[in-house]
């Protein structure tokens, strides 16, 4: 059984304290800036934990063995999901109450032809972008994913005590249904929560782009926590072969992210249609350096550092790339959300970084706590033995 050391706990408390101060400071100082910062940081960790659910389901649906030794790490990460989900629902509710102005289409009178704020394009989207349906969808995503996570974890715990193949088979069924559900809802989630910030604009591959970013950060977080536990002397079954495969995933998803990023960018840049190109003009004009640096570090670092076999098997290299990639994808989420809300008045200062620290602390605290609840290595899993002898 894993026990959280005093230092680890103190670090997560300290981070949470910094986050709390930053949140209070942010909302007192400039609430208009603090809300999107809350959204960015909350979404970032929400994406990681949602991806961890998908990761577990993926291993069941494909009946893969290799991830079994650190399955409990992914299970631990999913426990954060509901916290992020509730904060997300709160942000959406606050948008309706006009405490924040993240979603432009929630403004009063924007869909009323007799109002001075009337916007014909946004009014045309009323069938999909109206608050009751929007809120209901958000609840459906969060409850649906959370239920799948709960059920998969419960089945895994039952397997530990009861044994047999019953739990495993039930997990496969749950996973397959969940993956289909997640395939639709993860795309819809990205349209709802992120794409509708820039209400006029739309992109058909947006869902995959957001998903690939979730994937990179999700795999990275699983790898980093597994290495962290390994260095603490736990997870003796995990060796460089498992980290090698996780490294491949980080590498592959980074390439996928770049592919999506560029596919979206180049088609819009090339066709140069005014209603599409405004999205990139906002980023190009006001976020120029951040925009290019983000796309380059998220591509070049994983590509060059994780390309060789030896570096994927080296814990230090994977950790280094992990830190770079997490920062890079945080900037990516920042660029997804902030330009539509803050326009050219954006900052990365104490509010943003402090709130990131706060969410990181909260995330680590919850995940660490969840990891202590069950043995880190699964018992009675049909692939437990095979996965220990995983060799590539």
């Amino acid at each position, binding site marked *: 059984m894993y026990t959280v050391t005093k230092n680890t706990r103190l670090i997560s408390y300290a981070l949470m304290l910094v986050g709390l101060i930053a949140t209070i400071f942010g909302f007192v100082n400039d609430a208009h800036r603090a809300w999107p910062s809350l959204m960015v940081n909350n979404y970032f960790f929400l994406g990681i934990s949602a991806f961890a659910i998908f990761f577990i389901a993926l291993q069941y649906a494909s009946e893969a063995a290799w991830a079994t030794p650190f399955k409990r790490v992914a299970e631990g990460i999913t426990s954060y999901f509901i916290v992020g989900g509730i904060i997300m629902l709160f942000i959406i509710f606050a948008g309706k109450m006009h405490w924040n102005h993240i979603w432009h289409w929630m403004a009063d009178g924007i869909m009323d032809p007799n109002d001075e704020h009337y916007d014909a394009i946004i009014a045309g989207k009323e069938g999909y972008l109206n608050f009751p349906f929007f809120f209901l969808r958000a609840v459906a995503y969060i409850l649906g994913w959370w239920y799948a996570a709960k059920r998969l974890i419960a089945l895994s715990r039952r397997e530990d005590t009861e044994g047999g193949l019953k739990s495993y088979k039930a997990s496969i069924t749950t996973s397959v249904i969940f993956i289909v559900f997640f395939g639709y809802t993860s795309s819809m989630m990205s349209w709802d929560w992120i794409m509708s910030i820039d209400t006029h604009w739309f992109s058909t591959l947006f869902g995959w782009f957001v998903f690939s970013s979730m994937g990179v950060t999700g795999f990275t977080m699983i790898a980093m926590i597994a290495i962290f536990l390994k260095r603490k002397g736990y997870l003796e079954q995990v060796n460089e072969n498992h980290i090698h495969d996780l490294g491949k995933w980080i590498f592959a998803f980074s390439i996928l992210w770049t592919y999506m990023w560029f596919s979206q960018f*180049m088609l819009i840049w090339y066709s140069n249609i005014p209603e599409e190109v405004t999205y990139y003009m906002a980023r190009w004009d006001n976020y120029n350096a951040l925009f290019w640096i983000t796309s380059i570090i998220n591509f070049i670092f994983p590509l060059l550092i994780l390309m060789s076999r030896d570096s994927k098997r080296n814990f230090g290299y994977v950790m280094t790339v992990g830190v770079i990639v997490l920062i890079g994808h945080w900037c990516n989420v920042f660029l997804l959300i902030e330009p539509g809300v803050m326009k050219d008045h954006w900052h990365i200062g104490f509010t943003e970084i402090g709130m990131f620290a706060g969410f990181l602390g909260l995330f680590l605290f919850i995940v660490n706590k969840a990891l202590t609840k069950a043995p880190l290595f699964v018992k009675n899993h049909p692939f437990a033995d095979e996965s220990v002898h995983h060799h590539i």
Partner: protein
Amino acid sequence: MSKKVIYGIFDDEEVLLDSNKEVRSEDISIKEVYTPFPVHGLDHALGLERTRLAIAAFIYGAIGCALAIWMTYYIMILDWPQNIGGKPSFAYYLNMPAFVPIIFEMTVLFAAHLMVITYLFKSKLFPGQESSSPDPRTTDDKFLMEIESDDDKKISDLLKKTGATEINVKDIA
């Protein structure tokens, strides 16, 4: 005593792998092993060096990438700038996004094709090449270990002991 070549034939890849380790621990060098499919861990058991094909692939990819950059620059900017869809054609970096698919494709083309050619060349696989396998059953369901030695008795016994189902001994002419 003349030099002989001993062929030990196995039915199962796990037995072959164990036998491999046993033979190598006796300081007998194995000349070659023939199997119907790739056996996981066999290269390690035989003590073969890791393949450097990946390094070659990286170099080929880099060549393809560099060539594509030069090619797009020469054709589209230097030699004959054209106005295509109003895209800037006077400086390479301004028009670069349009060339990325070409650079990507050329990188993949070079890496993939040259890697396959290198592999075929290193494995001496050409059209019309005779098979070097001493026993055609290795393409079906048998595994064959080839050892050259003066003392065929000792080797045969060792192979038998470690699970070979059949031993063939041949004189080297």
